């Protein structure tokens, strides 16, 4: 701890004035919670003050922005680091972390403390806590429920002149789209339009290349057009499911949406880029995870009634939405596992979960989400619940990263860079994924 001491002295001495008394120095007994750097994380800092006061443990936080989050945290787990005691890791990591013993299995702890997964939304339990999927083996407690949904400029949609023009063009009223096709039309309608003297665009969508962005976006189209990860009857059989005609149509749809409705230059956009585009008044709609909604409501430009929300619209093959969100896990390498479990016990309490919603978090506890009056508690509350009911997630296999990266590359190459056809992209993806599953010995 010598360097720690030197550093703390230096930090305190020189930046004492700027750091406003809040100490971030790590002691051996302290808990470090790792998560993505985003609004909900800051809300969690606020919420956790209550835990600090009650338990006497001191909380430190390590927040990493989304584009680097998986990279950094998987590196941390694989390098056997001791940085994190608690990790709110992304849903897809659970397979690898469980199989490699990087997360503590929580079944005994849940039994002892009387925490039951029946109290949480089933989709979040499957998505965030279980490995293997659909088996009662838990490696996390659902911490933050999240799903891709849409935000739109209600104030623009309601303008009579815009409504009139839209009706003339498409023969229906301008409103929340009932299908993905309608959504594309609305996007195209707004694309390049002059509103209040500024050129605006249709829809900010996910196109990011480096981490998981475009995959988290394109799946919302793929699922609804009929893409499936594998043969339901024959696991790891991909041919004809990943690259079915329906899936090809879904991918082509996403490219069309990108070309006709996305703002120019939005070729590498993920959560924060879309927030920027929307808040600065560039776009009529944005695709984004639900976590942004409290921030939209609070925004001086687009908040307080100017924005509306809707769940990912249906496609020809049904209505689904990409699952986001995370469970909270105890890192097996941690030296303070007991204190970390104490935190989870505290966090699982219904009162804390209710407060979590109030400060801008998104709990998965049924007691909060199904409480009377929940739908009216926030303008986006109902859309959030509707969306959580239709979620699907990406592979959560231990080889998750090897599966995600080729998808990022193939999809980005087709949708953004315009290389090859949709069929070629998905055929290529089948080839890449087959190779991964062969390496894994699953095929």
């Amino acid at each position, binding site marked *: 701890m010598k360097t720690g001491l030197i550093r703390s002295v230096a930090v305190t001495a020189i930046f004492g004035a700027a750091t406003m008394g809040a100490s971030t120095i790590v002691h051996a007994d302290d808990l470090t919670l790792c998560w993505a750097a985003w609004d909900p994380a800051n809300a969690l800092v606020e919420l956790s003050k209550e835990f600090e006061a009650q338990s006497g443990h001191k909380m430190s936080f390590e927040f990493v922005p989304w*584009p680097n989050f998986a*990279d950094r945290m998987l590196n941390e787990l694989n390098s056997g680091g001791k940085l994190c005691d608690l990790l709110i890791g992304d849903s897809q990591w659970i397979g690898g972390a469980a199989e490699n013993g990087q997360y503590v299995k929580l079944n005994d702890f849940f039994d002892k403390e009387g925490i039951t997964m029946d109290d949480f939304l089933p989709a979040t339990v499957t998505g965030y806590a279980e490995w293997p999927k659909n088996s009662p083996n838990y490696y996390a407690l659902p911490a933050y429920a999240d799903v891709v949904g849409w935000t739109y400029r209600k104030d623009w949609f309601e303008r009579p002149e815009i409504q009139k023009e839209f009706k003339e063009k498409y023969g229906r009223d301008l409103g929340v789209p009932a299908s993905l096709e309608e959504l594309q039309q609305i996007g195209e309608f707004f694309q390049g339009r002059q509103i209040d003297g500024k*050129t605006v665009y249709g829809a900010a969508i996910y196109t990011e290349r480096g981490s998981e962005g475009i995959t988290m976006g394109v799946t919302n189209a793929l699922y609804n057009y009929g893409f499936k990860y594998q043969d339901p009857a024959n696991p790891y059989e991909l041919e004809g499911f990943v690259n079915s005609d329906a899936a090809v149509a879904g991918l082509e749809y996403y490219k069309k949406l990108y070309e006709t409705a996305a703002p120019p*230059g939005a*070729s*590498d956009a993920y959560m924060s880029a879309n927030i920027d585009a929307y808040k*600065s008044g560039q776009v009529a709609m944005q695709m984004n995870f639900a976590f942004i909604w409290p921030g939209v409501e609070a925004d001086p430009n687009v908040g307080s009634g100017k924005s509306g929300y809707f769940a990912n619209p249906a496609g020809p093959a049904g209505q689904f939405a990409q699952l986001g969100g995370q469970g909270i896990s105890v890192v097996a390498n941690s030296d303070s596992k007991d204190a970390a479990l104490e935190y989870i016990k505290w966090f699982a309490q219904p009162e804390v979960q209710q407060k979590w919603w109030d400060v801008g978090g998104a709990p998965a506890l049924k007691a909060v989400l199904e409480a009377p009056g929940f739908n009216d508690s926030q303008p986006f509350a109902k859309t959030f619940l509707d969306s959580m009911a239709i979620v699907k997630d990406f592979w959560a296999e231990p080889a998750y*990263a090897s599966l995600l990266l080729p998808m990022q590359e193939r999809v*980005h*190459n087709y949708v953004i860079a315009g290389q090859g056809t949709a069929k070629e992209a998905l055929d290529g993806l089948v080839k890449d994924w087959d190779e991964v599953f062969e390496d894994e010995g699953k095929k």
Partner: protein
Amino acid sequence: MYYEIPMSDSTLERVARATPIPIANKVRGLSDRAIAWIFVAPTIIILLAINIFPLLWTIYLSFTNYAVNRPNREVKYIGLRNYERILGDADTWVTMQATAHFLIWTIVFQVLIGFTLAYLINKKFRGNDLWTTIIVLPMMLSPAVVGNFWTFLYQPQIGLFNYVVAFLTGADPSSFSMIGNVELAPWSIVIVDTWMWTPFVMLICLAGLRSIPDSIYEAAECDRASKWRQFWTITVPMVLPFLMLAVLFRGIENFKMFDLVVQLTGGGPGNITTLSSIDLKREAFEKWRTGFASAYAVILFVTVFGLASIYVKALNRVKQR
């Protein structure tokens, strides 16, 4: 390899003069040989531990299917399978092409602009020192931080770059996206690298220009050689070894290029700007295919070493001319 370069004087000669035997014998205390070893050993040990040992380990790993993130999986010896896969994969060649494009064009621009600037600065106008220092600044900064900030400058709606171009050409600033467009993205990284590293070439060229004695020009003047002829028969040949040295440095550095480009484009759109180092990092530390990535690393290392050796041979030939 560098010690054959013309500008450094032969270290061997200096040392031969450096240790007069009779004096060395008179010295009290430790023998010179002991001191030499005490002084050199730590450096050699550290470099062996941090460079050679890892390199050997990389070569060993390249023949296995080892994966860092799968500690429970049996490590198997798989022969040349990793190498076959990499060399047989079309994507490898796409990244090699991207690397070559980046390498060639950055060198072309940096040599042209760098030499021109050096030539102009050598006119010794008033205040040339101050302006030279200003031009040199970008080169010394952190490429990752600079690359990150350039994504902001390249933003079509809000970025400075697009507005400057729009101002100069009259085009609509949001009509093009340097990073997002497939045609422009490879140039976006060339532009930033040129911005950062032209001063490097410039400084070396300047040293070359200043090394030419005035007497040569004076003699040419007496022979009534035109300025144009003087430029091609005196200036260019005399600066060429310096210029080739600059190209060698830039070539090696840009073959290794990682930080600037990964921050700037992340390898996108698609894999248009995925340079070899970026691809390697993805395989090694995102997909965690350790064995596969090790083979990739070996291939890259052999390539850069091979190209540099060929180049140094050429450089020495120029020097001897």
